[in-house]
């Protein structure tokens, strides 16, 4: 009966799946949405799925430089991110804390009592997309806020972990609490409050990134 139904209505079912798949992806767990409304890995599709990311910071420090290879090592050569064979390649571009138009992420250290870190994305304008020769929309650029009071009270690993988590948001990921992930937010209500126990991108993080980009 069911077999006959699918046989008869396969085209209609296929049409429905095709039409609804973008809507389903938008609400897929672990992502904020889909490119080109979110993310920028860089710039997805338009430059051949390059994972090159330039950062600026108003407090360049060793934790940033330690976090970047951790991200690269745990995203390189993985089956979940086969489009980014060289992984996510984060590079310190400037220490000026100012946006130039090659910068993708600004790590801004400031007094920020509501939480240790937050991610604020801005959708790129059509003129910015044209500047890079890609059509609008073309993703976002992200500011990651890091609370200086929290930062000063933490050890090296915890700081690196925060950089990895906040920049994960900039790539298009949302908090994830149902399994071990760099996107666990450290709250006791999120996967048992694991934080420095997870210092690398996990399969669920990589799958999330793969789902963000077309």
């Amino acid at each position: 009966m069911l077999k006959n139904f699918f046989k008869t209505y396969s085209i209609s079912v296929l049409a429905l799946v095709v039409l609804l798949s973008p809507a389903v992806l938008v609400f897929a767990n672990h992502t904020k949405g889909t490119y080109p409304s979110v993310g920028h890995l860089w710039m997805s599709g338009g430059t051949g799925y390059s994972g090159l990311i330039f950062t600026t910071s108003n407090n360049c420090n060793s934790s940033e430089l330690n976090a970047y290879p951790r991200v690269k090592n745990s995203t390189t050569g993985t089956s979940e991110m086969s489009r980014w064979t060289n992984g996510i390649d984060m590079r310190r571009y400037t220490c000026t804390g100012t946006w130039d138009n090659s910068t993708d992420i600004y790590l801004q250290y400031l007094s920020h009592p509501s939480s240790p870190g937050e991610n604020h994305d801005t959708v790129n304008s059509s003129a910015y997309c044209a500047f890079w020769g890609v059509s609008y929309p073309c993703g976002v650029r992200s500011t990651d806020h890091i609370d200086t009071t929290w930062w000063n009270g933490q050890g090296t690993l915890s700081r690196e972990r925060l950089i990895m988590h906040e920049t994960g948001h900039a790539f298009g990921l949302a908090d994830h609490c149902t399994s071990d992930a760099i996107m666990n937010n450290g709250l006791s209500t999120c996967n048992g409050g694991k934080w420095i126990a997870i210092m690398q991108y996990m399969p669920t993080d990589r799958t999330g990134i793969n789902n963000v980009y077309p």
Partner: protein
Amino acid sequence: MTKIILQNKINLIAIGLALATALYISFAVVTPAVADSELKRELTTNCANLSFSQSTERNTLLDPDNGIVLVQWSDNGNRRDTRIPYEPQSGFQGCSQEAKALLSHVREVYEKQVADSCTDFKDIISGAKPLPEKNGKKANIQGAVNFVNQYCK
């Protein structure tokens, strides 16, 4: 017999295509027109009611051209999402105090990004800085000119 089977298949394809077209029209054409005022109402209501139950990471995604901010946060381990209007010219009137504080924060982020970008684009246009290249892709100066005309005083 073969002709009848073929005709049935053609009918099924036609039905499938008609259904797909109808769905597409309802999603992509009719819905946005009807939803415009509903969206505005939804955003206004969300902004008036926005409150965070605990000290938590509040992530945002600003779409300045469409005047919308997507807010995401974690509420006792559960992911929460809402959309609120971005109307800095009104001082975020009608929004809760928590929403106003968050929107002011978002505004600062956005205005800094625009101001810094303007400085950089102006330097590129004047020749003070070279046209950048990234991942083997050379930037296009016309985009810089358009940005300055549209966003920079």
